[in-house]
């Protein structure tokens, strides 16, 4: 078996840099308040690991300080694993900062080790990480080799074995106390340790070391717990500084949406809605639902929708972190477009609708539908986004099906308006509409009438002899 280990020693700093930008000086501290990691900008200012926060603050005036245990490294590892999943099937997480990949079964797909190696390295570097990769013959040896920065990229077993034997004891992953003891005994490389009979080693330094050595050299099996990708998308980004204006939210949101797009593309899925959770300082959060009328995978479009939605949203308190949840996933279907773009593009037509729904409220943007009923009030239906039928659910009345000979006005009043004493000129014969005995019976004579101001109205006389206006011939 051939394994590849991705070591991310600067993961906490990379994570902060991704959300803050590379120009910020960022340091990561441990619980005791000592600096354990510093990014390039901070290092340029002279900040080194093991300095105290106060020393570092003196060296750089605008320092971003994060404690390591505040960062959500595990979810970040999972995101990386999800990204790696497009290349390899068997991935094991090695928290806090490593990933192990079984690559032998994937070599036929990628051709050779170096192709895969460079694909992963390039991809991770582009995402803002600083990975150290190395292959190994066992999981532990791959980890040891990558942590020692050997950067092995070959499937030649002899070379890998040789590199492992030359490994210094500090990188072998022994317990610090054991490494210390071995050093005092005068051992420096793994080669020297493996030359000693195991029984004697176990007597001196304990059984655990022997078991570990067996796993390291691949003599005993080392079963791994492989990663399975999540079914929905839920990701959180912690803001380095609180944001109190809506436009400021768009930058971190864009990052989230790019991740979402990658997730959707890899899983060949699309979303029709998503929820944005804005977490505030006092552990409460506000939720914004963003509905999308046709499923999409386009980040740019979703970001436009989000900005429209946020424009009209009043933030109750400054935001400390954002969570994006998209659990309603649908199989992605490529929409067919017209080659000559003469006709409207269905996807872009939907985009326009999405924008309207996001900016204006849902009941303000509607379409119309004809119902099969003789009563004018019941012969149409206003369709909003939610009560819209899926195409095919109901028989769509095609224009040609409809009786075009009927005289119907352009404008309809939603409730007939009583006419009191208005002198009008009737300019058409009566049209009797008598229907609806089953629920709301009407019995009316409709006329086209000219009003004194010259407008043409659609008026009717009810059974009781009262006159009503029901529409205008606009």
């Amino acid at each position: 078996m051939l394994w590849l280990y991705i070591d991310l020693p600067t993961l906490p700093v990379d994570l902060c840099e991704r959300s803050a930008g590379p120009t910020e000086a960022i340091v990561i501290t441990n619980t005791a308040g000592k600096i354990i990691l510093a990014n390039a900008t901070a290092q340029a200012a002279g900040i080194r690991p093991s300095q105290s926060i106060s020393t570092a603050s003196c060296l750089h005036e605008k320092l971003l300080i994060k404690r390591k245990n505040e960062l959500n490294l595990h979810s970040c590892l999972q995101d990386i694993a999800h990204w790696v999943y497009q290349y390899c099937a068997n991935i094991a997480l090695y928290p806090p900062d490593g990933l192990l990949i079984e690559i032998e079964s994937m070599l036929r797909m990628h051709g050779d080790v170096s192709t895969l190696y460079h694909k992963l390295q390039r991809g991770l570097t582009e995402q803002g990480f600083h990975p150290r990769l190395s292959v190994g013959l066992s999981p532990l040896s791959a980890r040891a080799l990558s942590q020692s920065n050997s950067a092995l990229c070959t499937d030649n077993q002899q070379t890998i074995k040789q590199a492992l034997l030359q490994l210094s004891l500090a990188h072998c992953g022994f317990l610090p106390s054991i490494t210390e003891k071995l050093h005092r005994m005068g051992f420096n490389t793994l080669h020297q340790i493996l030359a000693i009979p195991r029984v004697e080693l176990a007597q001196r330094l304990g059984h655990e070391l022997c078991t570990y050595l067996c796993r390291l050299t691949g003599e005993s099996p080392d079963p791994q717990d492989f990663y399975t990708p999540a079914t929905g998308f839920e990701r959180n980004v912690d803001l380095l500084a609180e944001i109190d204006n809506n436009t400021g939210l768009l930058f971190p949101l864009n990052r989230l949406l790019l991740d979402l797009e990658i997730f959707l593309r890899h899983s060949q899925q699309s979303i029709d809605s998503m929820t944005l959770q804005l977490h505030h300082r006092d552990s409460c959060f506000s939720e914004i639902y963003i509905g999308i009328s046709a499923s999409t995978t386009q980040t740019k479009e979703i970001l436009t929708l989000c900005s429209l939605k946020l424009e009209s949203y009043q933030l109750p308190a400054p935001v400390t972190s954002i969570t994006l949840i998209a659990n309603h996933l649908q199989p992605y279907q490529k929409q067919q477009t017209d080659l000559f773009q003469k006709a409207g593009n269905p996807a872009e037509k939907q985009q326009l609708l999405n924008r309207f729904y996001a900016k204006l409220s849902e009941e303000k943007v509607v379409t119309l539908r004809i119902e099969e009923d003789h009563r004018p009030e019941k012969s149409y239906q206003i369709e909003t986004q939610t009560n819209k039928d899926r195409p095919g659910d109901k028989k769509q009345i095609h224009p040609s099906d409809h009786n075009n000979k009927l005289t119907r006005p352009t404008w309809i009043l939603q409730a007939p308006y009583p006419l009191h004493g208005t002198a009008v000129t009737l300019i058409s014969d009566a049209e009797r509409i008598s229907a609806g005995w089953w629920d709301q019976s009407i019995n009316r004579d409709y006329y086209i009438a000219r009003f004194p101001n010259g407008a043409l109205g659609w008026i009717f006389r009810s059974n009781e002899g009262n006159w009503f206006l029901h529409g205008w011939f606009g």
Partner: protein
Amino acid sequence: MDFSTLIYCTYIQYYFLVYFMSDLLSGLLNSAQLWRASENTNYHCPTQNTGIKELNQLLPGSGWPLGNVTEMLCDTPGIGEIRLLAPLLQELSKQDKWMLWVSPPFLPYPSGLESQGINHQKVLLARNLNTPEKLWAAEQGLRSGQCSVVLLWADRITNTQVRRLQTACVDSSAHCFIFRQARAANEHSSAPLRLGLSAVAKASATSTLQLSIIKCRGRWPHNHPVILNIPAIFTKARLSTFAELTTTQTSTQTSTQTAISSAK
């Protein structure tokens, strides 16, 4: 100096004056720097047939200007403002694009649209909006390129906003009609075409629309209003022959003067 010499001198002076003037004039006329309104026939704007012969003759380019804002100044709904556009809308419903109606005064009646040959499924309706939302919706519709026509009802619209819509319209080459109150005729507007619509008082049985051109780019506007005879309903059959009908049509329906108050 005797009298005949005086006459002669005046004649000579006059002759030279005329000679030089005509030379100056012809020089001016021949140079391309002088713009003469009477010769301005080379205004090119893509247009679309209005479907109404009389209207075609009135408008520059013989049709509704594509990619331009047209203002319709009309106080009362129901005088034929949509019927005037019906042939255009009928043509546009063949395209697979939205026809966006932004805050119309009443609800468009789908059956009524269909009876005029307008596909109601292409109608996208934005209603109950405030003025900024109306303008935003209209502009989005134009900029998206997915609307064949945008009909906007907006009373309080400033010239800056009209110009903004005009810019959006030029990019999309869609039609845009803004319906405003008639009093806006006195205000300045950037719309290349402005029409005043009113109903003819004491008209015959069929609806008659009085149309005055307030402004039109590329041609001198007509000074006096023109009366267009538009039937109450454009049915598909009538639509095709409407151009002929408008000139010769006489009312076949007998008009009945009825005071509803008396009928009650």
